[in-house]
């Protein structure tokens, strides 16, 4: 055998093992993804966001909670406060930087909870069928028929305002579409020869769902989740805006807009800056999602 670079090894047409094949496919996907400039911009923004969130104490010029009533509502570019200060004289830039942590926290939790719940409901429903399917899908319909924000609002109102409850509420409204996708995938997979073969080997339902159906549903779910991230961020911001998300003095972006909207006429930047932050991040997720979709699920894209 001749010497091979890693690149060549990854790009081979004749994989030597299963793992090799998998890695190779991944790498080729990455190459396709990398050529998509917009998606790379999205990824770049998100990586920057993660870095900013991780290094918040180093990056933030001020403590995001320190108040200075004597220097409130300072304008953009004032000394020591690049993005000005808010109603209690807190540095807006620092609050935005710390707020990135909250945004990531919400997104990460929702992205974990909702698809898993959806996957569970969808695959069970699709695989088992019959009454279980009818009941589970009816429940899904019920949740779908609710206005999303109203449902989230109702849950937060029931559970009490707070960031964890906001996450739960958003997850509760976000799972039904995943359940539908997972169910649809399951239905196509269920009747395939491949599953019949495994059944013949005596595998149980649980094993089939977890070992064979779930992995096949994952890629379409990932695409969907990434595309939904922006929606999740916007929903969280909406709850924060209504005062039902993170509680003060937490620098959640939606809540910051809500605080700043009172000054919109004379001190427009107080509400504008967090709005731009939300916009940037959700745009990044959309760009990334578009790119991922092109790679993982080409037929859905164009």
């Amino acid at each position, binding site marked *: 055998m001749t010497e091979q670079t890693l690149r060549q090894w990854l790009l081979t047409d004749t994989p030597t093992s299963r793992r090799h094949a998998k890695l190779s496919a991944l790498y080729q996907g990455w190459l396709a993804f990398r050529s998509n400039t917009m998606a790379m911009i999205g990824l770049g923004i998100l990586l920057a966001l993660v870095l900013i969130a991780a290094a918040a104490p180093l990056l933030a010029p001020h403590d995001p*909670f*320190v*108040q200075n*009533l*004597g220097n*409130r*509502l300072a*304008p953009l570019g004032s000394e020591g406060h690049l993005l000005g200060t808010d*109603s*209690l*004289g807190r540095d807006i830039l620092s609050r935005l930087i710390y707020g990135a942590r909250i945004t990531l926290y919400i997104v990460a939790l929702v992205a974990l909870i909702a698809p898993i719940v959806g996957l569970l409901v969808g695959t069970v429903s699709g695989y088992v069928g019959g009454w279980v399917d009818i009941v589970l899908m009816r429940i899904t319909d019920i949740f779908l028929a609710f206005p999303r924000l109203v449902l989230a609002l109702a849950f937060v109102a029931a559970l*009490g*305002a707070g960031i964890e409850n906001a996450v739960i509420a958003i997850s509760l409204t976000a799972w039904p579409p995943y359940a539908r996708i997972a169910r649809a995938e399951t239905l196509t997979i269920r009747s395939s020869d491949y599953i019949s073969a495994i059944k013949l080997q005596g595998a149980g339902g649980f094993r089939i769902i977890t070992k064979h159906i779930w992995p096949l549903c994952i890629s379409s779910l990932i695409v969907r989740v990434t595309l939904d991230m922006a929606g999740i961020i916007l929903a969280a911001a909406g709850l924060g805006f209504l*005062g039902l998300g993170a*509680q*003060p*003095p937490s620098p959640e972006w939606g809540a910051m807009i809500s*605080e700043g*909207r*009172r*000054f*919109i*006429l*004379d*001190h*427009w*930047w107080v509400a504008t800056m967090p709005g731009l932050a939300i916009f940037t991040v959700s745009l990044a997720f959309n760009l990334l999602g578009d790119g991922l979709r092109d790679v993982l699920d080409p037929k859905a894209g164009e």
Partner: protein
Amino acid sequence: MNTFARLLTGVAMGVAVSMTSLSAVAETPANMLVIAHRIDDITTIDPAESFEFAGSDISRNVYSRLVMLDPNDLAAGYKPDLAESWEVSEDGKTITFTMREGVTFHSGNPVTAEDAAFSLQRAVILNKTPAFILTQFGFTAENAAETIRADGNKLMITTDKRYATSFVLNCLTATIGAIVDKETVMANEVDGDMGNEWLKTNSAGSGPYKLDSWKPNESVTMSSNPDYYGGAPAMERVIVRHVLESASQRLLLERGDVDIARNLNPEDIAGVSQADGVKVEDELKGRLMYIALNQKHPELSKPEVRQAFKYLIDYEGMRDSFLKGQYTIHQNFLPATYLGASEENPFSYNIEKAKELLEAAGVEDLEIEIGVREAQERIEIGQSFQNAAAQVGIKVNITVGTAKQILGRYRARELDVYLGAWGPDYPDPQTNAGTFAYNPDNSDEANATGLLAWRNSWDTGGLTEKVDAAVVENDRDMRIQMYQDIQAEFRETSPFVIMFQQIEQSALRDNVTDWSTGQAVTSAAYWQVTK
């Protein structure tokens, strides 16, 4: 306007030279008064039940009472309204009112002593929220027929004890003292509800205005009563439009779409006062902003801790920043301008002092929850307090909720600390003394949820008896002194950190004159307004 705004205007002007604007700067008609206000608190307009600010505004203009407060001369106190005069019996328990002749309700029915008796009895029997204002004089559903009775054009009311006459009459200026049209109301009675269901959304008064419509969360429309005994009001139509946002109210005012904007925040007041044709008027209101410490909490019940919290408020910092112009420092439970009010404000922001007091009490690592209603100024006060408390090692967790969420827990004595507001119910010192410093039974079973002292599990340390004594004192100077003494003790011992008294800033088009929101004693009046 700031640079950004100017820049945008410039750009837009260029683009839009040929575009005609869809809404030109308007002016309201000369005989119409248009007010932008938050009216989402109105849940009912039955005067026997109505108890919210915007609802009281309606009833003040739609209903007449036995005695009234003159919006042009509020300092004078109560004046004759539907009652032309009154006499007090020898024993001081019975007041006999002589009714004004020739006054009619909007329906055309004459206003009689019988209507007056019915209205007060009805309020007592229905026993809705504000009923305590009357029932505190010993009226009950059972004895109402004897204690409140009409005879010809005279109305007699008999109280269970001898109270200060001014106290009784002051209570009758409240919304619940409104006189309703018995015939009309009883014609709309359903299942013995004394017309309650109907009056919730309709009116039957004799006041300067007739109610045309109340659309929840949208508007209240009134038209003038040409037969009003005091003369038909100048403004023939009054529209109160519900506008939630301060910024929106300001824009409406600046564009001339409304005559008065009532809920502008300090920043918008500052902005609007630079606009052409707009003026700002201040009125000291009765509402107090306070923090209360639950005495069930083992640490918060220590006297030193109670004192320490009074030094943890940045009174001046807040007054001069986000509360600017809308609150003044006030540390006593009687609002300024009330009989017996005190001017003493001994506490100031002093972290060192607070630290010493906490050390003396042996408090360490305290973590408490503060319940705050979802109103921006309160959330900011909460955060300022949280910030100060952090400096003495107390961790404060803010729980923000709607009024109903937070109040429920406060009334159930569940909150560690409550940040809230209290407004007097009628223009007599008893209104606040009887709740801040009065708590005859501090047990859970007493369930005296109406008393602030009870809600905070505070037994008042003997102030209850002093309040009882003050309310029956008929000598004015003596009574003032008694309230001064109660407040002096209250400041030092109570678990209430009273911080601010509200100033209502109304922004008006400058052709509006004689506007009154009722100061600390009553609600807004429209009939004296001219343009």
